[in-house]
């Protein structure tokens, strides 16, 4: 008879020697401090240009706080969509096209390894590090982001690990403020132990448009205002994924897209695309290894358990098919999955997978297809 803790203990029993040391961590920490001090200077040309554009497009928020002149920011990768109006001019377009968002965030006050773009059902969102921005044609979702929920924190006395945890005193506030001359509400949650305070902001940048922004901050509310300054509602940006689907079931179109763009120096980001129509739906992911050793022998390559023995061949690639999903951790060098439901079956999944063409350059979104289903 085995309990869960015993199983977990066995699962980690083959831990290889840890390379993290006191010295390496201190050295990495010192480098991070230096990067922070020089972070602004390290902005990429693209990021800097975008920041300049932002400064022109959106005047500095009229906030009752000190300007965030000393906040270190990190460029957010984004792809401008030429000729497409921004949300400030066309609120009705927000969340209407899964391959477009009608606002941009040029930088984040929180380090990030990737940024995720998503557009659907009247809302558009950007997540970058601890920053989340939600733009919507109704108030509910942006308000949820701005207010935040479930942030209660507590600690347990280490000398009495079985004692009930003591809640960390926290303080919630909301106060009126303005953003670009418009009425706004500033939400904050601060904690008595000094850990990351969180700030949110909700306002209507235009009639019929709500914007909620949430930022976890290390230094305080100035980081939030820095993020607000980085917003640009006058331009649209492309939501792109590093692959193309050259073969779709009849009538299928893009229904939803969550696109991950890697920050400079980062590897491939995970992206997700849903296509379909009245006959069914299919979800395609890339950049996300699958750990699913059902029926498998132990790992034959790599540090993690391998997939089971492949049981299908699609377009010359060996893949594993089970339960409505194709899995491969090495489709032209990257992990992919294709799942089908609501009427689609293996035939449709095979058709989609056979037409999957992964971009050669996985880190430069400017080289990715404009549309994942075109041509």
């Amino acid at each position, binding site marked *: 008879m085995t309990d869960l803790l015993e*199983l977990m203990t066995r699962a980690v029993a083959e831990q*290889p020697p840890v390379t993290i040391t006191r010295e390496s961590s201190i050295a990495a*920490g010192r480098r991070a401090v230096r990067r922070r001090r020089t972070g602004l200077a390290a902005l990429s040309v693209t990021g800097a240009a975008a920041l300049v554009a932002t400064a022109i497009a959106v005047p500095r928020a009229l906030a009752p706080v000190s300007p965030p002149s000393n906040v270190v920011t990190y460029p957010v990768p984004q792809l401008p969509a030429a000729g497409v109006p921004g949300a400030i001019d066309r609120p009705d377009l927000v969340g209407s096209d899964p391959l477009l968002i009608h606002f941009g965030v040029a930088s984040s006050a929180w380090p990030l390894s990737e940024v995720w773009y998503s557009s659907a059902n009247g809302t558009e969102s950007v997540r970058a590090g601890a920053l989340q921005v939600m733009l919507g044609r109704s108030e509910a979702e942006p308000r949820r982001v701005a207010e935040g929920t*479930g942030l209660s924190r507590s600690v347990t006395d280490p000398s009495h690990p079985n004692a009930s945890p003591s809640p960390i005193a926290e303080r919630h506030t909301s106060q009126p403020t303005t953003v670009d001359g418009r009425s706004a509400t500033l939400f904050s949650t601060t904690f008595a132990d000094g850990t*990351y305070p969180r700030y949110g902001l909700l306002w209507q940048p235009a009639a019929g448009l709500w914007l909620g922004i949430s930022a976890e901050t290390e230094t305080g509310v100035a980081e939030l205002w820095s993020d607000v300054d980085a917003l640009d509602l006058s331009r649209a940006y492309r939501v792109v994924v590093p692959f193309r689907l050259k073969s779709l079931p009849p009538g299928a179109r893009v229904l939803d897209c969550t696109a991950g763009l890697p920050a400079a120096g*980062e590897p491939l980001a995970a992206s997700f695309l849903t296509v379909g129509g009245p006959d069914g739906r299919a*979800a395609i992911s890339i*950049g996300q290894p699958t*750990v699913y050793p059902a029926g498998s022998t132990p790992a034959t390559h790599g540090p993690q358990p391998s997939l089971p023995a492949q049981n299908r061949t699609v377009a010359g690639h060996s893949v594993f098919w089970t339960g409505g999903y194709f899995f491969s951790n090495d489709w032209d060098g990257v992990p992919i999955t294709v799942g089908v439901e609501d009427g689609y079956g293996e035939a449709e999944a095979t058709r989609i997978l056979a037409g999957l063409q992964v971009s050669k350059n996985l880190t430069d979104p400017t080289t990715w297809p404009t549309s994942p289903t075109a041509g």
Partner: protein
Amino acid sequence: MRAEAEQQYGDYVAARASRLVRFAFLLCADWHRAEDAVQSALVKLYLAWPRLGRIETVDPYVRRIIVRVLLDHGRLARFRRELLRDRPPEPPPAADGSGAVDDRIALLAALAALPARQRAAVVLRFWEDQSVEQTAQTLGCSAGTVKSQTARGLQTLRRLLADQYLLRTGGSDHD
């Protein structure tokens, strides 16, 4: 950072790094990625150390960063299979129960079948021995959500592993 504080930070790393990597491994099933996540968390910890400095504050902070790195904004959230899947994969086949490798594979496969938040809740509760409230703090959700996520996660684990193992969790799933 002042020398004394840096010394304390170094002591913390030396004492905790290995265990933190094991925690991260249970979340991602990849030793390399686990080390990356822990290293990222420790760099952030270095930056925040002057404001933390108490162990009861540091551990939750580091766990939270690791979870965030691996599951939320993750480098790069590679376990977000739940975005694609509304039903669990088929159960792993019965292991013969005689080998540690089978145990390891079976457990990792079962954990991998859980949605990310359920997996994190289960690992925090039963590996890190965190209370519901502490787990909620780490995951940035309510205590009620932790209870439901944990219960669902355990239910799935039991279903996936029931043929090989009789799971005991040392208490109520809803504690």
